[in-house]
């Protein structure tokens, strides 16, 4: 996995609460058996005026000029600013893959749905929880100045505004370490294979019905 240490990028404001993963990547694009190539269909039904189907040439689509990611001032955005309960709904990891494939490295919101939050860390995408007032402040700042950028510093657990204002954020230490070092968590778990086998041996005695083949 690609490590995440610190990232500075243009902020795109997505001013809606309860954005669901169906909106982030609609179901018709879930038929792929790959992990890549979802970026062109990120937020497909908001981002385009024509109906999206797998296999279309993105350059032949009709972009919706009102959608934030289509506005020139947010071109190349690497940080998505969002509202409460971001990425609720379906467990589809494709939502994370679509964001990262598009170029988003961090999402800032007051709260995230649990499954998405968890999926993000498996793919080098950093979800940053900041309180609603701070998020509101960032929305205003982003809309006020074109090319507004923030730095997301995972090492120091800070979001840094251009004027140097810093907003600390909380993150689980284990997740932070895995992301900073880009660790393969399956490899990490398999270092404890003996513990897993010992657990199984004990449970087979206690609860044999769990091991019926």
């Amino acid at each position: 996995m690609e490590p995440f240490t610190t990232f500075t990028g243009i902020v795109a404001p997505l001013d809606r609460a309860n954005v669901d993963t169906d909106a982030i990547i609609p179901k018709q694009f879930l038929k792929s058996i790959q992990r890549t190539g979802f970026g062109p269909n990120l937020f497909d039904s908001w981002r385009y005026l024509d109906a999206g189907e797998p296999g279309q040439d993105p350059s032949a689509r009709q972009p919706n000029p009102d959608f934030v990611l289509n506005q020139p001032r947010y071109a190349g955005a690497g940080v998505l600013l969002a509202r409460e309960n971001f990425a609720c709904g379906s467990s589809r990891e494709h939502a994370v893959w679509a964001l990262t494939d598009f170029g988003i490295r961090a999402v800032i919101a007051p709260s995230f749905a649990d499954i998405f939050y968890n999926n993000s860390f498996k793919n080098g995408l950093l979800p940053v929880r900041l309180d609603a007032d701070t998020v509101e402040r960032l929305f205003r700042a982003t809309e006020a100045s074109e090319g507004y950028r923030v730095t997301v510093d995972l090492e120091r657990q800070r979001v840094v505004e251009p004027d140097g204002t810093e907003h600390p954020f909380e993150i689980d230490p284990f997740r932070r370490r895995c992301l900073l070092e880009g660790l393969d968590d399956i490899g990490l778990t398999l270092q404890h294979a003996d513990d897993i086998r010992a657990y199984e041996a004990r449970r087979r005695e206690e609860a044999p019905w769990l091991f019926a083949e």
Partner: protein
Amino acid sequence: MAGRTLYDKIWDQHRVREQGEGAALLYIDRHMVHEVTSPQAFEGLRLAGRRPWRTGSVLATADHNVPTTDRAGGISDALARTQVEALDRNCGEYGIRLFGMSDLRQGIVHVIGPEQGATLPGMTIVCGDSHTATHGAFGSLAFGIGTSEVEHVLATQCVVQYKAKNMLVQVDGRPGPGVTAKDIMLAIIGHIGTAGGTGHTIEFAGEAIRSLSMEGRMTICNMAIEAGARAGLMAVDDTTIDYLRDRPFAPRDETWEQAVAAWHDLHSDADAEFDRVVRLDAAEIEPQVTWGTSPEMVGPIGGHVPDPGAEPDPVKADSIRRALAYQGLEPGTPIREIRPDKIFIGSCTNARIEDLRAAAAVVRGRTLAAGIRLAMVVPGSGLVKQQAEAEGLDEVFKAAGFEWREPGCSMCLAMNSDRLEPGERCASTSNRNFEGRQGQGGRTHLVSPAMAAGAAVTGHFVDVRELSDRRH
């Protein structure tokens, strides 16, 4: 020491080790797999040269992408076919048990697990699907995971987890006639919001929950995710045990007795402490209908579409405004005057035999109202379909003008050809009314099976309690 919650007990029993820094390695007893969220996981396994840790724990089926019309010709959508074939190939290569498209036992993964007795009390259960919480109805800890975690569980039989907080949703008293598990759950979501359970495992308790059948309990736990909770669960009681007895994957004879003895401990201790407690009175719950684009945008059948101007919170007011624009609804419209174009009875929320019986009871002797373009019943599994046919329910639906389909997820998420066209309105027994969920531009209203049936035969949302004694 304070007592433990049911969640605490299952957690403690499955903790292989502390990973440090708040994370634990949790052992997984049952892994359910479907075609949409697994291909990249199997590919990852293959690329890393790893093998599944315990194939006997895995149960696979194809449900999201499969056609619900005649399957003799296979799947015509090439992408969907590729995905289903990938599942067949992956299961074949690793020796994983698969209920494929032609198997009578095929169906929606959250219907077939319990139906087969592959879902057992006290288990940890995962699936690459957010509605995995369904299985919590059996006193198991069940939650949805992403594809990277599917690969992790295949490779290690474990997930790395952070313990959630404990939340209790207690529904006291008994619901009135015509008020179903779906109505109770929609009312809970309306009360606590779609993020109300975020970071928590919800235990559902109280007389109203205990009085439900296993089908009803599954409907409630199924939608824990719509209340923000990754997992919802319920204590084990005789209803749970009676349901599981003699199911194909359930233990037998002495092992059954041993298991039942262990299952009797699967409840929260009387002195267990919850981080958050919410209480509802079942007697106050009416049949529910969602009007917006989030499951929390819900109200009683006797209510009206809300006015965003009356909402003080600007973010919420904006959400209501957007939802009404998308749904094509005016503030103040009585819910009863909303007229669906299509009816969908199905999904992992409401496609079990009891759901079909409830819908058929309303439909019996009636026909589809003139404005209904399509009404479909999609049983949750081949076995549910077979049972319904043995009871003659298919004839009731067909005589009324419904289409009787093959099992799958169908128009709950509209990955196959079952979908709404732009602007079409649907009374749906599924779980999500998000924009575009049932088809781009489609408008969804979530209801119980009886309420969907009521809308089908009258052409508008109607209080089914009035229909039960009025025939036309």
